[in-house]
């Protein structure tokens, strides 16, 4: 960037909200559907609830073309590396939606196999409770995420903030953001 410093403040905020508006209504999603919640994901996407009304209808089955990752269902330790890899393959800006309690916290699968919430592997922007969530809950979650995207500063801070956060986490020894060994993203 650089151009934004030349522009008057009013214009940049206008532009910012315009970009936020455009972004929130054109979410290309990658459904990482694993379990029961996938059924409700299908229900949300099909005729009765029709997620297309919110500009989020097209599932992109390539992470590089997607900017919203739905983690739909339980993630276990066997699957965790794949989820992490998909997240890393997605281009910025990207958002993650934890769909259902298993993805959010592990739910009642508190055992050797499951990851206790995907926020231990990747950062999460929105949690949708329910096991599985009703489509109404999903739509509510999507709307909440949309307002978050709208409010997200784009031009001035977004990238700098994220980079700062990452650097801080790495410094603090949090392996959340260190890349997996020997893996190109």
């Amino acid at each position, binding site marked *: 960037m650089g151009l934004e410093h030349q522009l008057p403040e009013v214009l940049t905020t206008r532009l910012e909200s315009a970009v936020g508006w455009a972004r929130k209504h054109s979410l290309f999603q990658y459904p990482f559907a*694993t379990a029961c919640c996938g*059924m409700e994901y299908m229900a949300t996407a*099909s005729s009765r609830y029709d997620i297309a009304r919110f500009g989020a209808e097209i599932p992109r089955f390539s992470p590089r073309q997607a900017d919203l990752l739905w983690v739909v269902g339980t993630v276990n330790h*066997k*699957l965790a590396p*794949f989820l992490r890899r998909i997240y890393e393959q997605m281009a910025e800006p990207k958002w993650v939606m934890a769909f259902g309690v298993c993805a959010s916290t592990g739910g009642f*699968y*508190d055992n*050797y196999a499951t990851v206790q919430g995907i926020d231990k592997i990747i950062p999460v922007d929105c949690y949708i409770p329910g096991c599985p969530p009703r489509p109404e809950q999903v739509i509510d979650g999507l709307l909440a995420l949309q307002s978050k995207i709208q409010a997200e500063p784009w031009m001035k801070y977004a990238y700098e903030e994220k980079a700062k956060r990452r650097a801080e986490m790495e410094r603090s020894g949090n392996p959340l953001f260190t890349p997996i060994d020997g893996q190109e993203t």
Partner: protein
Amino acid sequence: MAEDIYQPLDQDIHTEPMILQMGPSHPATHGTVRFTLTLDGEKVIKCDTEVGYLHRGFEKECENSTWTQVFPYTDRLNYVSPLLNNFGYALAVERLLEIEVPERCNWIRTIMGEISRLSDHLTCVGAGGLELGAMTAFLYALEGRELVWDLIEEVTGARLTVSYGRIGGVKDDLTEDFADRWAYTRGRLQEIHANTHKLLTRNRIFLDRMQGTGVLTPEMGISYGYTGPVLRSTGVDYDVRKDHPYFMYGEVDFDVPVGDTGDNYDRYLVRMEEITQSIRIIDQCLERMEPGPVNSDDPRVVLPEKEKVYNSIEGMINHFKIIFEGIQVPPGEVYSYTEAGNGELGFYIVSNGTGKPWKIHVRSPSLIMMGGLHHLIEGGLLADIIPTFDTINMIGGECDK
């Protein structure tokens, strides 16, 4: 002469099989499963299936829960037809306890089980259409499923993970206007069924993808433990509902559809026919069931009525005992089996006489079918994996436990 010219050329071209990883998060594998395919051009030479990407420790969790707490876990086995799992598990524990449930409970279980089967088959058929490019069929089938789920939600309180079965009964009686609601849903379902038939059954593109692909022979099917619609499509008329009637299946009339070639198209037809039969069974049940209690009156297993809990000390003590210690199941083991959406769902249960199960093993039809899947895939084309995998109808939760 021409052969002589081409022969050396053939030898010169160096070809080697290509190894392709398909999955675990692949759009066509609606579940998480990974195929390691060895391809010769477009032909699959070898297929190694890897499952377990949804392993959630079902059996370990059950061993650490009371007998009642297992119900939510069984919901999430075959999550398209959770009621069938609920009732299958309840039946297994009831066999171990040697208790009988009232007649109305059996009628309700039959009705709700068949409603669940409708949802299962509609999803399978619809998703199959979607994966072969027939998006409309998917939308119609899901419309039908929504209607079915509306009914389930009315009765159980949840769309998908119902936790409706209880040991010795069900959680609640049917709602009062259930028969009227069913009459409406039934009409819509038949319309959707007819529309799906119109869209798919004679469609040439669909037929070309389905006919003659993923062929299973009866011998192979039996040896690999296939059950349910997949085995019936080969011509073996094994159906637990028919051969070992449980609940009220011995009392109602229905047909068991069987195919003859065992290819994908037969599996599709068998499922479509089973939708009709399920509707027929529900009709008969609703006609013949009579009012009565829905829970067994055995105080060992059924929570006392709320009135008693609120107002009498015996009720209160009994309530607390069941909640804190769990239902006391006598020691022993039993293998109990029912017909679920995908085939025979068996529970091998071992009790050591306490409130927690010592072991619960699920004979999940999906896992066993995945064990023989390479036989259906090998020798076919890469593109045939998609209809084959769909008509097998592997459900992650059930397969990976």
